Every structure is written in structure tokens, then in C-alpha cells.
């Protein structure tokens, strides 16, 4: 379904200066309609500033925001543009009233009639699993319930673009997990263009179609998750995203206690109970990858054994980082000793193996990967 997607939002020459210091400097950013873009980066990278600048909540020193081809501020007024957006912050920022009234807030701002308000609010309360809290005071909610309310409030407006600024970072893991699932579902159903800032890379991997790595106000790299993770464009991005190998694939078979995933034509076995047809993301840490010059049909406890070619050997402190090509990219670490013993050099054939238990699986709840 990789049909021609229009670019719903563009930022050109966007600059924000605070006290003479450049906080944001984006020469170009284009977001295709219906896509989820995640911004990742260290604290102070400018993720929040970019979200605020794109939604025109923060005044930029220069630059243009273009929504559906219309330049905001020229003939297209700021308030008209903002009516197409919604934003959710890290804190729920609810109003001192009931959950129902909170979710209805955006609609009432738009003078939607009472019956319609009731209908839409009840729908979104259900979708976010807080229907039973409708009459509860916002002050009496748990962190998760409050953030659900904030999300419901934003989505009830049916925005064209939704901005999320680290919406899950102040929640505990189980709550985060549950909320992320619901969010994923809604994003898939509504195909709302989403721009989300997060410092949790797993979150980004799971939800996004594109990832942008930011540092000091600039976008260092932007692209599909696997590409950014596996092919970092420079050292900064590389050190930020970490050196795990990220693979995406479809489950083709379910075994006893494990399942097999087709990745670039080869089969990888991982632990879990995913069903055939599911899309998964597999993360393999370099230290879990072993290489040897033995035969690839040796019996080992590692379920995943592949013949591969050494592409690059990079000195990395006490180790050497070795990039392999098994049909899919794979990264491993070796000691100097090992390197010498194996006489490793670029271009040589080598066997790479890793255990099924060493794979960190991220399951996407959708039945298809966007773009396929």
C-alpha cells in the first residue's frame, strides 16, 4: 500500500533562537500524510521545540510551516491552522472538571452541538478504555487514567495531525505497554498523521514509520527505523541508537515455544508465541552474536546459524565491531585476540550464530507493516 502519499506538513528553513542561541535549525522536514514520525534524541536535542514550532505554539525566528500546501501565516491564519491539530504533553494537563468534560473540551471550543459532543466523547472514552470514568473528577485519576483522558481529548477532535511530546515517559511500564497498544490501534484505524517525541527507542521502533534522530536542534538522520538503527549516518547517531541489529520480518511458522520469522529470505527463530502473518521486529545485541570459521551445519544450542560475509571491521575501544552480511545486516563484537585467531578480514566468509533466546522481540499489533 505504498501509494503516492501527499506531504501533509512541511517545515522549511525553520529556525528558533532563544537569547541568541540557536535552539532549532531545520532546513527541511516533510511529513507524509498518515505517517507516524518519531523524534528521538538526548535531552535538549530540541524535540519538544520542534513539536512546538511545527504546531506554531512556539514562535520561530524564521522559516515557514506549510500545511497541505498552504503557508501558515500568509493567507492561512494561525488559528485556522491550529484547528487541525491536537497535542498531548508529558503531563496530562487536564481541566479541573469531570473526565467527560475534559474530553469534550476541544469539541466545545469548536461549538459542536450538544448531541454530537455526547456521541463523540462517549465513543472516544470507550476507545481509550475510560468509559467507566466519565463522571470522575480529573483530580482523582491515576497517572495512566489521566494520560488516557488527555489522549482521548486530543483524538476526539479528529485532528489532521497529532503531536505527542513524550506522552508515556512518566508512566510505569505496564501502563505504558497498555496505553501504547491502544494508541497503536487508534493510529492504525484513523490513520492520523502523528509526530511524536520520545527518548525510548523501543517505543519509536514499535510505533513509527520514520524516525528522526535529533541533536542540538538539528535532524541528524531521518528514515525508516531499521535503516536509522542499522545504518547510522555518523558516529553520534550510531552511539545514540546503540549497536543492536534491528530486523523486521513476518512470522511464517509457529513452533513449540518459538516461532520462525522470514527476514530477507532467510529464517530466524525466536522465542515466543507470535502467530504466522504477524509483523515483528527483532533486536539482537552484538555481544550475543558469535562468529566462527566452522561449518554451518554443526549442531549447537544456537538456533540461528548463518553463513555470512564480513563487511567491515571497526576498532571500538577494547573490542572490534564487526559488521556482517547474512542477507540481512548483523553486528557483532570480537576481542582483538579472537580477531587474530580467526584471521578476520573484510570479504571473508564466516559463520555467525545467535541464540533464539537472545533475540528481543517487539511485536507490532497490526496485521501488516505500513508500506508493504
Amino acid at each position: 500500500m505504498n501509494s503516492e502519499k501527499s506531504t501533509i506538513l512541511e517545515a522549511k528553513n525553520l529556525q528558533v533562537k532563544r537569547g541568541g542561541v540557536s535552539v532549532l535549525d531545520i532546513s527541511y522536514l516533510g511529513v507524509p500524510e498518515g505517517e507516524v514520525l518519531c523524534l528521538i534524541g538526548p535531552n535538549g536535542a530540541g524535540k519538544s521545540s520542534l513539536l512546538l514550532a511545527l504546531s506554531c505554539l512556539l514562535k520561530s525566528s524564521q522559516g515557514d510551516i506549510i500545511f497541505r500546501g498552504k503557508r501558515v501565516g500568509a493567507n492561512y491564519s494561525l488559528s485556522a491552522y491550529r484547528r487541525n491539530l491536537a497535542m498531548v504533553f508529558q503531563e496530562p494537563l487536564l481541566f479541573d472538571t469531570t473526565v467527560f468534560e475534559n474530553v469534550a473540551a476541544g469539541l466545545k471550543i469548536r461549538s459542536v452541538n450538544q448531541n454530537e459532543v455526547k456521541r463523540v466523547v462517549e465513543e472516544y472514552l470507550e476507545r481509550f478504555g475510560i468509559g467507566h470514568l466519565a463522571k470522575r473528577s480529573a483530580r482523582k485519576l491515576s497517572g495512566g487514567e489521566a494520560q488516557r483522558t488527555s489522549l482521548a481529548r486530543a483524538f476526539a477532535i479528529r485532528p489532521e495531525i497529532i503531536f505527542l511530546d513524550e506522552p508515556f515517559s512518566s508512566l510505569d511500564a505496564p501502563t505504558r505497554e497498555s496505553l501504547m497498544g491502544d494508541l497503536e490501534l487508534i493510529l492504525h484505524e484513523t490513520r492520523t498523521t502523528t509526530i511524536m517525541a520520545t527518548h525510548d527507542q523501543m517505543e519509536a521502533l514499535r510505533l513509527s514509520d520514520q524516525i528522526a534522530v535529533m541533536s542540538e536542534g538539528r535532524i541528524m538522520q531521518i528514515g525508516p527505523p531499521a535503516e536509522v538503527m542499522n545504518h547510522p549516518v555518523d558516529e553520534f547517531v550510531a552511539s545514540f541508537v546503540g549497536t543492536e541489529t534491528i530486523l523486521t520480518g513476518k512470522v511464517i511458522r509457529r513452533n513449540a515455544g518459538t516461532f520462525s520469522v522470514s527476514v530477507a529470505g532467510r529464517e530466524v527463530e525466536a522465542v515466543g508465541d507470535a502467530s504466522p502473518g504477524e509483523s515483528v521486529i527483532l533486536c539482537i545485541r552484538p555481544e550475543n552474536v558469535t562468529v566462527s570459521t566452522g561449518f554451518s551445519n554443526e549442531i549447537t544450542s544456537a538456533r540461528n546459524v548463518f553463513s555470512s560475509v564480513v563487511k567491515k571491521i571497526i576498532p571500538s575501544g577494547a573490542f572490534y565491531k564487526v559488521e556482517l552480511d547474512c542477507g540481512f545486516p548483523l553486528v557483532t563484537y570480537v576481542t582483538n585476540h579472537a580477531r587474530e585467531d580467526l584471521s578476520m578480514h573484510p570479504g571473508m566468509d564466516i559463520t555467525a550464530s545467535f541464540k533464539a533466546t537472545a533475540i528481543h522481540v517487539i511485536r507490532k499489533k497490526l496485521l501488516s507493516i505500513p508500506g508493504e
Partner: protein
Amino acid sequence: MDIIIEGIKQAFILLFTLDPEVIGITWLSLKVSGIATLISLLIGVSVGTIIALTQFPGRRIVISLINTGMGLPPVVVGLFVTIFLWRNGPLGFLEILYTPTAIIIAQAVIATPIVMGISLAAIQNLPANLRLQILALGATRLQMVWILIKEARLPLLAAIMAGFGGVISEVGASIMVGGNIKGYTRVLTTATVMETSKGNFDIAMALGIILLLLAFFINAILTQIQQRERPR
């Protein structure tokens, strides 16, 4: 002690027999202080909110001035207003000295900084990102301000009660600009002072008690508004 009992007795007698002069004085007190509080509400809440939400050079100084204004001695206000309003003063042509309007003006000057200062603090106390969140839901500037005011309704109503309390009990300015004219600019506080200076302590006490009842009644209504609508 008997004076207090006498006073309570007198208060009830005056109220139950609907003594016309006392009714008139009470109604005038309510009207004058009510209008003054209303004016201070309109100016105080709007200006206080605007200052809380905008940055401009000299903002700190303006805020200190407002905070100082909260403690303006009413008598000094009365003096200044009198000088402005008397015949040969700059606003003498309006001919409003010794009228209820003059009292309203003086009381509004006293109450406005109080309401403004507390409103300012109330709006500043809201979460920093709330403003952005409201705008991010598609609100216009005006809608945003209205929603912020609603969010701060607890302290804002306290501000109004403080303003009202300040002027319903005020006497120095009211005497100076009003003249305590019988049936025209005599209010509960000025009448109390007059009766006291005449030595009629029981009537003075009665008027004082009526004033307390009036203030309590009004504040009970405002408190009801402040505390309701907060879902359990």
C-alpha cells in the same frame, strides 16, 4: 457586655420592624459596594490575567505596584479622590463629590488592586504548559483566557471576596467622598461611625451587627459558587 446584648436586641428590632432608614442604609451599602466590587472584578481580573500571561519590559515593577496597591490605606484613597472630585479639582465639572457615585469610585480604586493582585497570582499559579495545551486544542486567544480563568476559579472567587470584604467594611474614604448625607450617601459603616461619635453605642452596635450579617450573607453566596461545581 450589655452594650453587645443591647446592640443585638436593637439590630433585630431594626430589622424586623423594617425600619426604613436602616433598610435604606443597608440597601445603599450593598448597592455601592456591590457596584464597586463589580467594577474591580471586571478591571482586576482582566488586567491581572493579561499581565500574568504576557511578557513586557518593566513587568516586575508593574507587579510590585499592584502588590503595593493591595495595601493602599483607604483613607489616603479617599483624600486623593476628594481632591480630584471637588469643585475646583480637575474633575470638578462632573459634580459627583458627595454622591454615591463618588463612593463607588473611591471603593473601586481600593478594591481593584486587591482583585488584580490576587488574580495575577492565581493565573501565574496554573501549570506552565496549560496555556499551550489549551491553544493546542484549537482555542483562540480569547477562548484560552476564558478557560484559564475558569481553571483558576477558586482563587479568583477568593479575590472577589477579598475585594468585596475590603470595601463593604471601608469607612474612611466613604465618609470623605460621600459626606455621610442622611438618606443619600449614608452607608452602614459611616452611620456606625456617626452613631458612635454621638455616643449612641447601642445603635452603633446594631448597625455593626447588620453589617456583619450582610457581609456574611454575600460571602456565603460567593463561597457556594466557589466550592460547588467541583465534582467529587
